[in-house]
C-alpha cells in the first residue's frame, strides 16, 4: 500500500500534517504521539521578532467547534531556529514552517533567515484574522496576495505554500492570484471570522471581539472550498478545517487535497493525528486502494 504523497517536490510518508497554531512545534504533543509517524509537522506561525499576542480571554467554545484570537504569539525566528528546528530534526518527519508578518519586509526577513535552515516547506500565513496588521490584509485582496507571494517566492529557498483565508467572496480568485505569482502549493482554509457574546457578562466572549472559528462545525465549508480550488488551479493543496477523523480526512482528499492538516481536533484528542493515519490505511485496505493518489480529487 502506498500512502506517500508529494507536495511541491517534498515527499510525505502519508498525507497527514497538523494545522499551524494547534500543535506548537510538536514538543507539547511528544508525550502523546510519535511525531515521526506524521507526514509533516506544521509549526506555529513565526515572525521576525517575538510577538506578545492578544489579551485574554483568547478562546471560546462554539457549537461543534471553537473560536480563537491568540494573535500569533511567538518567540521570533532566532529562538525558533535555535530551539524548535533542532527538536524537529530529531524526528523523521517533514518540517513546514508557518511564517507570519506585519509587512512584506517582515515576511521576507523570516524567509531569508530560514533559507539555510533544514526545513522542507514554508507556509506563508496571509490569512490570520486576529492580527491588526499583516495577516489577513494580504489574504483578502488578490493584488496584495499576488505581490506578497511574488516577494516571498523571490527570496525563498524552500517551496512556498500560501495559506488562504475563507473570508473572501470567491476563494478561487485568491488561489489563482497565488498560482500566477509563483506559489508552489496552497493550504486552506484558515479560520472563519466569527463573534460570540457572553450574555452573563454582557461583553465579547473573546477579548479581541472577533475570533477565528474552527472545528467540525466548519468542515463542510472547508471541503467545498478545497473542491473549488482544486478545480481552479494546478497546485497541490493541503486541506484543513474541522478534520477530526479519518473519514473527514478522506473527504478532503477526495475533494482534491493532496495532504490534510488536523487542527482543533488535537485539543479534543491528542492522539487524533496518528488515529487518522491508521484509519486511512484501514479504509484503503477495506476498499482495495493500493495508492492513496488514486483517491486525490477522485470526486469530480
Amino acid at each position, binding site marked *: 500500500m502506498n500512502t506517500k504523497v508529494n507536495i511541491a517536490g517534498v515527499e510525505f510518508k502519508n498525507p497527514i500534517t497538523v494545522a499551524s497554531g*494547534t500543535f506548537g512545534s510538536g514538543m507539547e504533543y511528544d508525550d502523546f504521539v510519535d511525531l515521526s509517524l506524521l507526514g509533516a509537522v506544521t509549526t506555529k506561525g513565526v515572525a521576525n521578532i517575538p510577538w506578545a499576542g492578544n489579551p485574554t480571554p483568547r478562546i471560546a467554545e462554539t457549537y461543534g467547534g*471553537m473560536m480563537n484570537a491568540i494573535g500569533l504569539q511567538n518567540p521570533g525566528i532566532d529562538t525558533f531556529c535555535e530551539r524548535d528546528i533542532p527538536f524537529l530534526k530529531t524526528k523523521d518527519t517533514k518540517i513546514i514552517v508557518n511564517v507570519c508578518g506585519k509587512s512584506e519586509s517582515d515576511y521576507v526577513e523570516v524567509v531569508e533567515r530560514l533559507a539555510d535552515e533544514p526545513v522542507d516547506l514554508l507556509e506563508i500565513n496571509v490569512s490570520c484574522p486576529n492580527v491588526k496588521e499583516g495577516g489577513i490584509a494580504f489574504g483578502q485582496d488578490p493584488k496584495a496576495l499576488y505581490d506578497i507571494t511574488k516577494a516571498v517566492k523571490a527570496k525563498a529557498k524552500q517551496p512556498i505554500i500560501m495559506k488562504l483565508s475563507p473570508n473572501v467572496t470567491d476563494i478561487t480568485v485568491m488561489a489563482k492570484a497565488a498560482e500566477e505569482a509563483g506559489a508552489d502549493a496552497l493550504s486552506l482554509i484558515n479560520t472563519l471570522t466569527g463573534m460570540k457574546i457572553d450574555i452573563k457578562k454582557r461583553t465579547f466572549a473573546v477579548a479581541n471581539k472577533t475570533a477565528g472559528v474552527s472545528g467540525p462545525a466548519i468542515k463542510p465549508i472547508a471541503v467545498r472550498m478545497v473542491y473549488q480550488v482544486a478545480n481552479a488551479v494546478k497546485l497541490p493543496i493541503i486541506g484543513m478545517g474541522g478534520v477530526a477523523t479519518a473519514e473527514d480526512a478522506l473527504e478532503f482528499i477526495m475533494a482534491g487535497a493532496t495532504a490534510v492538516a488536523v487542527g482543533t481536533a488535537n485539543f479534543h484528542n491528542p492522539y487524533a493525528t496518528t488515529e487518522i493515519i491508521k484509519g486511512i490505511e484501514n479504509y484503503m485496505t477495506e476498499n482495495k486502494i493500493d495508492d492513496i493518489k488514486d483517491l486525490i480529487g477522485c470526486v469530480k
Partner: protein
Amino acid sequence: MDKIKMTANVIRQDEIAYEIYSLVISAKEIADRAKPGQFVNLFSADGSRLLPRPISICEIDKNNGTIRLVYRVAGAGTKEFSALTSDHTIEVMGPLGNGFTPEGSKAILIGGGIGIPPMLELAKQLDCEKSIVLGFRDEEFLSDEFEPYGKVYKSSDAGNIGVKGTVMDAIKEYGIKGDIIYACGPLPMLRAISDYALSNGIKAQISMEEKMACGIGACLACVCKSKDIDDHSKVNNKRICKEGPVFYAGEVEF
C-alpha cells in the same frame, strides 16, 4: 511520558453542596504521577462540546489508583459531568501543570469558593504547621475534611459561616501568621493575597486560571502577564497550563 489521556471508570459522585459535585474516578496512571495543585482535563461525551474542561485535583489516592475532583456546575459541560454515576466512564487527561512546591515551616493555606478543593490534598501532604483559611459565599463544603490537618478558619460573603467578609478579613480577624502562603480562588482574592504577601515579605504560591484549549502548552490560549520574559515565547506571557497554574506572587501580573 509524564501525562496521558485515558478512559476512567467513575467510582462515585455526590452533590456536596448546591451545584458542587465530588467525583471520584479510577485513573491509576494519573494518580501515580499527580501532585497537589495539578489539574486534569475532563472531556465531554457530546461532540458539540469539544474543548476539555480543566478541573483541579482535590485528592490523590495512590494506593487505590483514584483521584477525586470537586467542581462547580458552570455550564453545559460540567452539567453533563454532574450526571455521571458509577456505571459510567469519562475521558480524562493528566496530570497537567505544575503543582504547589512544599517550603517553609509555617504555612497558611487559603481556598476561596471552588478554589478550596485543591487545597485539601496539599493540606494532607504538607508536613509542617498549618493554618487553613476557607472562604465561602453562603454555603459551606469540604471544611470538615480539612480539620485533621490543621486549624481551620472560615469566612463567608453572607456572614453565615465564620467571619463576614473575605479570607483576608479572616486572616486579620484571627491574626493568622505564617512564612508561606498557598492560595487558590477567584482573581480578586488572589490579588488581595498577592498584595498582602508582597507588602509583608511573605512568599505566596497562587494558583491561576484562564480559558484553556489544549491544556499542555501548545495553543497559547491561557497566558497571563509575567514580570519576567518567559522562556517559551520570549515575551512577558506565561502559560497557565504549563508554567502554572501555580505561580509566586509577584511573578505574574493581574
